[in-house]
């Protein structure tokens, strides 16, 4: 899927601004952004629910036109007919996707089984739990074996157990399907996906594979906590050449360093020499979370 300078404005408000990216077949891509960054609008444009104000989306060989039969979409708040049971709903959605009734029933049975809600197929959707609804929502998105599965905030509304279930499920699904999912939680993106597209206020902020972003943006950091305020000392080490940045708050100092081994040796020596009353000394790495915060915060 190729997305070129996708733009959507509502009156004067520009929700999505000149967004371009591409999704490779077989990849799992996370669309990451804070609430209100334009994730849902982007996904709705990609799924054909909204017309972009500007820009184009091409999907495989389909450049301009209807590619809805190749995608499966899970809306942010999946809704069902409370008067249908799970099985009926899946068959209905399957038939709408162009499957025959028999094919739709076979697929529906398969999916109910695979998503672990086989026994819920005969129950009215009205009585489903949040996690089950999400599974049924994913099942209806997968019913016609789409080439691309789009999930809008698939885990945001779930409790920790449901969230874990769905994330595990997505890990399974990405073996066979290309996935694009939106989230405001970086951790979920890191856990499941190969690639990340970070957007902020409708604009593309950073894009790349998770490992590449880690390599590029990850820094070693040494975190020292002490019984006393280390602010003064922290300022004194700012101009060491192994140190790139120092942040201190109360009794904790975060020291971003260029060479962890070298810096650790120097710092430990310094601590011993000055007899600083430290309580902990941690060598760590910045997470993508810090990068994300930096992007969102600017």
């Amino acid at each position, binding site marked *: 899927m190729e997305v070129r300078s996708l733009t959507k404005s*509502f009156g004067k408000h520009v929700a999505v601004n000149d967004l371009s990216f591409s999704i490779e077949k077989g990849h799992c891509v996370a669309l990451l952004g804070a609430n209100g960054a334009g994730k849902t609008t982007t996904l*709705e444009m990609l*799924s*054909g*629910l*909204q*017309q972009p104000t500007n820009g184009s989306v091409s999907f495989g060989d389909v450049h301009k036109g*209807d590619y*809805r*039969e190749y*995608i499966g*979409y899970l*809306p942010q*708040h*999946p*809704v*069902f*007919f409370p*008067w*249908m049971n799970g099985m*009926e709903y899946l068959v*209905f*959605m399957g*038939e*709408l*996707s*162009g499957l025959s009734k028999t094919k739709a029933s076979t697929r529906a049975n398969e999916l109910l089984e695979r998503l672990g809600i086989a026994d819920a197929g005969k129950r009215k959707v009205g009585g489903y739990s949040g996690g089950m609804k999400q599974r049924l929502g994913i099942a*209806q998105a997968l019913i016609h074996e789409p080439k691309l599965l789009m999930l809008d905030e698939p885990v945001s509304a779930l409790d920790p157990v449901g969230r874990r279930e769905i994330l595990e499920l997505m890990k399974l699904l990405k073996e066979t399907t290309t996935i694009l999912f939106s989230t405001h939680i970086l951790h979920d993106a890191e856990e499941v996906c190969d690639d990340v597209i970070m957007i902020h206020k409708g604009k593309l902020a950073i894009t790349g594979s998770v490992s590449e972003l880690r390599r590029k943006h990850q820094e070693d950091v040494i975190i020292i906590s002490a019984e006393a305020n280390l602010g003064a000392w922290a300022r004194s080490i700012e101009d060491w050449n192994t140190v790139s940045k120092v942040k201190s708050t109360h009794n904790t100092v975060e020291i971003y360093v260029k060479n962890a081994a070298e810096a650790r040796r120097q710092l430990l020596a310094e601590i011993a020499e000055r007899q600083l009353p430290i309580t902990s000394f941690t060598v760590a790495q910045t997470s993508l979370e810090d990068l994300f915060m930096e992007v969102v915060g600017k």
Partner: protein
Amino acid sequence: MKTWLVLFRKEWLEMIRNYKVIWIPLAFVLFGLLQPITSYYMPEILKNAGNLPNGAVIKIPIPLSGEVLAQTLGQYNQMGILVLVLAFMGIIASERKSGMTKAILVKPVGYSSYITAKWTSAVLLSAGAIFLSMAASWYYTVLLIGDFPFMNVVKGASIFFIWILFLITLTVFFSSFLKSSGLVAAFTLLLSILVTLLTSLLGKWMEWSPYQLTNAAATLFTAGRIEGPFLLPLITTVILTVLLLSLAATRKSNS
């Protein structure tokens, strides 16, 4: 076409599950029976109810069959329209509100199929209700009051139904862009009352009015043939219906 049938079947399944398929026709049959029965018993009811002086002779003529059937149309125009508009006000609005419309439209489904499948279901159910009710009303009228040619009932009901068709299309039209079902009902009912009132008050200027079809059907019952404007209101009603339906079935960009 195939997805249209799938959507159409879903509408019927829904109307069966929420009992619309039963209660709307039954309610209409009740409205239909009410008129012949009250007409027949009216003299007796009045005789028993009034504090009339002894010896007073009351002569209340039982109306003719055709008049009773025409009055039945009046029942439909009050209770009947109210029931239909309220029953179908949420036909699209409630699915738009819940997000179901989006869930359906991400599938390769044409927006116009989605709307017309709903419209057709509503039209067919109302047609069934009205014709069933009209037949029941005719049966009771013949039994209690006097013979009446059935073919004229079919003709009259068909003419009357075009007016109902227009109102259902109006309901679907409002339902396709308003999110509140209540507003849909309010607008549709207000407009139907307005059309009815204006047609009765300014008959001369309103010969094209869809409401004239009610008058045409009523005269067919009372006089045995259509009196007053018929072709003109028929044409305008059909044009308005097609126009409203195509407006409703054209996708708005931000729906």
